[in-house]
């Protein structure tokens, strides 16, 4: 599947209804928003609600929208929407709790938003996106080698033996994939505006 840049994707969303674009958008940003919400102490179902809120808010603000990078970065906008949605969710939960448990009143409602958390999720989003795009570029064995050796911390020798590769091939797989990841992410970040 070919790749659509975020700006093009946004413009497609702003135009006629385009379920494909929505599906793609959803696929791409769901984990990011869920992950961010989760870091603020929300349960999985609440994280889903937050993601939903963000998508609805976005769809409403996108009608007739034309992306203009000068007006601010998309990622900052998305972050604002996410923070709003998380706050709303926390407030709801708090109100519900107050109704059934008066003693819990002193609990903090709003939380301090952690900028690093957002950046962290954003980096992960880029990595997932890039890995998805690179899947076809490397064969399964190389990808397994990368996961086992570079990510899961298995030794190169073990990895080589488990996958029937030479040591050299394992090292190669790691460095080639890291290199391509960096290139892809660099391109993605640039396209993001």
């Amino acid at each position, binding site marked *: 599947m070919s790749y659509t840049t975020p700006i093009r994707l946004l413009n497609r969303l702003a135009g006629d209804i385009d379920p494909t674009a*929505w599906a793609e958008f959803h696929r791409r940003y769901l984990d990011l928003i869920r992950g961010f919400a989760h870091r603020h102490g929300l349960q999985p*179902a609440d994280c889903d609600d937050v993601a*939903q809120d963000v*998508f609805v808010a976005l769809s409403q603000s996108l009608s007739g929208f034309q992306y203009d990078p000068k007006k601010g970065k998309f990622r900052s906008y998305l972050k604002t929407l996410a923070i709003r949605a998380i706050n709303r969710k926390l407030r709801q939960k708090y109100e519900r709790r107050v109704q059934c448990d008066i003693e819990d009143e002193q609990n903090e409602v709003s939380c301090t938003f952690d900028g*690093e958390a957002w950046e962290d999720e954003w*980096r992960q989003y880029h990595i997932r996106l890039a890995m998805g795009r690179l899947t076809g570029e490397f064969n399964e064995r190389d990808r397994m080698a990368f996961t086992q050796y570079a990510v899961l911390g298995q030794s190169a020798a073990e990895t080589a033996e488990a996958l029937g590769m030479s040591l050299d091939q394992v090292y190669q797989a790691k460095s080639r994939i890291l290199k391509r990841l960096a290139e892809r992410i660099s391109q993605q970040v640039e396209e993001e505006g």
Partner: protein
Amino acid sequence: MSMRDDSKWFTDAGLLLEAVCKTSTHWGQLPDIPGYDELVEIRRGGQGVVYRGRQRSTNRTVAIKVLLDGVYASNVSRQRFQREMQIAARLRDPHIVRIYDSGVTADGRLFYAMEYVQGASIDCAGLKIGNNLTRTLTLFAKICDAVQYAHQRGIIHRDLKPGNILIEGAVASVDDDSSHTDYGLGPRTDVVHPKILDFGLAKVVFDETEGVAALTRVSQTGQFLGSLAFASPEQIEGTSDRIDTRTDVYSLGAILYQLLTGQLPHSVHQNLRQTLNDITTTAPPRPRSIRADLPNDVETMVLRCLAKEPERRYQTAGDLAADIRRFLAGKPIDAKRDQTWYVLRKTLARYKAITALAVVMFVLLVGYAITMPLLYQRAREAERRTLEEVASTQALNNFLVGMLQKSSPELASSREMTVREMLDQAAERLGEKPELPPQVAVGIHRVIAGTYGKLGHLDESESGMRRALEIARTTFGTGDVKAAALMRDLGEILWYRGRFEEAEQLLTEAMAVYEHAADDEALRSEYGLCLFSMAHIHGSRGRPEKAVESYRRAIDLIQGDTVAKRFQRVMARTGLATTLFEQGQFKEAGRQYLETLAEAREKLGDDHAVVATILTHLGRYHTEMEEFDEAESCLSEAMEIYRKRLDPKHARVGTVLARLGNLKSSQGDFESAERFWRDAQAIYVRSFDEDHEKVVGIKLNLAQSREMQKDYAGAAREYRLALESYRRRLGDKDPRTAILRSKLAIPLSELGELEEAEEELRGALAVLNTALSENDPRTAKTLIWLGRVLLKRQNPEEAEPMIRRGIDMLKAGLPAGHSWVALAENALGECLALLGRYEEAETYLLRSWKVIEMRYDSTHEFSRAVFSNICGLYERWGKPDKIAEWCEKSTDP
């Protein structure tokens, strides 16, 4: 290390790798889904991840959707999810993606396995603008048919949208400038194959919450906006009690609207409240205001689907499909002609009756197009040849015309006729027509008899076939190939009914005819078919070696690549596997079954009745191998296929029920087992003689179940009844009679009638030693039981070598750790304890305990038997501390 402010984090390999390690999704990390392997991720969406994988028990390729965490998180909704999936799994339509299975992954996420379809969703396939109206509508009518099929089975989709409709073979085109230029679907409509996804999935969500809230729930698991645009007013209003099949009709209308105009009926890009308001109150823009070239009738159809009130829509998806087809055929559409409703309906009703008749005639003539069970494997070409000959004669023509007149709507009662009634009429009419040319009469008799057989009416089938054979013999002579084919058909029916001797005689006669013509390629296949039928008879008459040899020769001889030939080869391979299995060659049998199943699926299709037959055998195989989950999945798939294809009282349905009973009883659920067996029995007695193997088989099962429930008197009674049948039908020298005698010995020995038990076992052993092959598990079990009876009669010296030999025989065929071996070792331990060889005894008993403890809980009779032998051993041995230690283990006081 903080990465804040480092906008170039990805350029440093160390930082990048650190970030990669923190990322949750990696390559090569696949979920652990019980029963499935060879997973490859193929799609990732809002609801979860879809993998391609292999279902181990059936060896087929499937798509598995693993839902996200948090989707259907509560216990109640999990159960509902599984129940809905079971219901949805009953849908069998070429345009609905089949669901095979559902469950929970090792890490607790819900999944369901479905048919693997290569293709893209209707929107991703670039199918958008109906620039070819005929093609779009033809495709759409197929989708409506599939929805109608599900509705007739009580399943409403509730979330129909383009994303849920796959186009098989289409290539996804999600690219930067996808301006929906073309379908990308190939040039012809008839090759476009839509498949609807996720039937039943939405019910759980919609039922649990209400209206918009429900939609939001759907959306949290996926494309909210995609769903909203296609949701009906009653869904938006949250009146879930108003949701019915017409809700899907609305969604179909919205999809068609989008396919034709490229726009949604209501924009979802405004304020959410406004969107919801539009859907419930505002009429959508007329499609012709967007595409002026759309015909008026098409606009009318679309708008009728999109009516706010369900009463004003098409009442069924079938009505919509019919109207689309009327439009395509250039006829006036129904949506416009309410005023002439009465006249139309009347005409329509007449057409329907005629259609039904045509279908029945088709069944009569091309009968074998209904996929047939084992009954008659005859050469399809030969049949077609006969039928072509027949059809060419005026006589047949007249016959058919006469039948049609007799059943025309004016003369017949108002209701439609069943196939059975049509057959009865045809048979009756055939009897009144002595002037028919004999070759025509033979052909018609054969087809009618064959169809009776397939419907499970064996009496009618047999008599029809006899009549055909009689005419053929007098007309063509006994040595003619036409008569030989009928002999084989009749032989097969007689075998199925348990009349082996006559069947064998007929087959031998038929084979002699073909042997004369051994040079002819086609007749060699016919000869192969006779061998195949003969192999059944060898098997049933206790000659497994001959059966194996005949099956192997039949597989070699049945040549050709027509559907019928593939079918016959698959059946022969199944027969071979079953015979191997019954001889105790389990590994080889298992391999043969799986290979044959894969071949059948590939060559004949997943829904073919033969697939069900093989699955039934495989279910029995898995049951005996104590692979209960696999067994259940095979048997339920078989049942589903038969339910769709056969009369519910068909003998094959009985077989599946009987196997399910066996499975339940193996799992210790005797109550369910007896229920299944009694249901099977009720079916069998309609089709078979009192002494038929299958009828007796159920008695045996019941006996066994009584035995396992310790009702030994009841068990002995049932066994004796069955034994009488066997002695009448098979005689004392038949191995099956012998096996039954050895089974009778078990409750006898439990009742303390040891002398009689020993006599039955020795009698059985004398026959089995010569009749069965060397390591047959049935001989082994008889040996072990005789050993046990001898133990009870205080004769361990003679018992020991018998039990040891039995164990060796069992080990030759069964996998390590099978409970039969463990129980035999338990007996050996008991024997050695009696002989005072305590250390040896301890080794066997502890080994036995290890296996039994793993498979059964501590209250099970097997566990208790081993347990009490262990305590008995330590008592004799004088080790009270050991006994105390073991008693602590026992949870049952």
